[in-house]
């Protein structure tokens, strides 16, 4: 817990984010003399003042031989002319190249920042979607509850069917047993009756019945011949 009695950030120096770099540096005329010098002399001497001052100074230095002309002057003159020619010819290209390097660095950093921002925005979107999904939880659970109830019902009905089938099988068995028993009794009785009848047919009765049959057949054959 911070002590609230100690004031924080009371000075003005906390600049965050950093202010951007200034676009151009201080103006320099002819590559050597800052522009402020010309502005300083302008009210009193006008536009040509500093140039007259420069010419006078150079003549004074030459005439009093404070600046001595010797071999080094010739060397300086050659070197300076080459330098000035190179700057005038290639200055713009070198400046453009350096600017491009800076731009690339800046673009890389900006790309990193933008990627981070996009990533976090996407994360926010996903989080919102998840929150929306949570709202649908109740529907999900209702559906699941319905599923479970249906499963229970189906299971109950299956077992009911099993019970019914088992009971029916047992009852069918009993019915079949009774039928079988009656069938057997019937067959046995028929056999016994037939056996008794056959036994009771004496040989005398057999001859009589056969003779009768032959007479009947003859009569029939006569009547049949008559009709044909």
């Amino acid at each position, binding site marked *: 817990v911070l002590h609230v009695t100690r004031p924080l950030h009371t000075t003005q120096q906390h600049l965050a984010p950093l202010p951007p*770099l*200034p*676009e*151009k*540096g*201080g*103006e*320099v005329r002819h*590559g*050597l003399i*800052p522009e402020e010098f010309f502005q300083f002399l302008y009210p009193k001497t006008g536009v040509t003042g500093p140039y007259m001052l420069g010419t006078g100074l150079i003549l004074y230095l030459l005439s009093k*031989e404070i*600046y*001595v*002309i*010797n071999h*080094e002057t010739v060397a300086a003159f050659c070197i300076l002319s080459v330098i000035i020619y190179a*700057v005038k010819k290639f*200055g713009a290209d070198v*400046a453009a190249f350096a*600017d491009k390097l*800076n731009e690339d660095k800046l673009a890389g950093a900006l790309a990193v920042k933008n990627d981070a921002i996009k990533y976090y925005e996407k994360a926010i979107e996903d989080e919102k979607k998840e929150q929306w999904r949570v709202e649908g939880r109740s529907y999900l659970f209702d559906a699941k509850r319905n599923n479970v109830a249906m499963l229970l019902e189906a299971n109950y009905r299956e077992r009911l069917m099993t019970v019914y089938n088992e009971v029916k099988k047992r009852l069918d068995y009993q019915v079949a047993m009774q039928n079988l028993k009656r069938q057997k009794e019937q067959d046995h009785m028929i056999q016994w009756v037939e056996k008794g009848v056959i036994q009771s047919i004496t040989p005398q009765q057999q001859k009589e019945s056969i003779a009768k049959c032959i007479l009947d057949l003859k009569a029939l054959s006569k009547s049949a011949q008559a009709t044909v």
Partner: protein
Amino acid sequence: LCAAVLLKDTKLMDVKLGQLGSWLAMRDYTPGGIAGAFRRGYNRYYNKYINVKKGGLGGVSMVLAGYVVISYIWSYSHISKSKLCVWL
């Protein structure tokens, strides 16, 4: 109505000529003070001419020109031997 600024806090360009002696006497000449002065000067030059987006040639060339002038001054006694007309 602004309060009067102490002489100690005025900048060099705002000091009147008569106060120049007392102003110079009031500056900080301890080693820390001198180092601070060098650092302030360096920072001013650096932030004005070099630490910008599109710096030009002037920032570096002024330093080199100053170096050339100082080295000429330091070797003047040697160079003055090759004067064309020797008056002194």
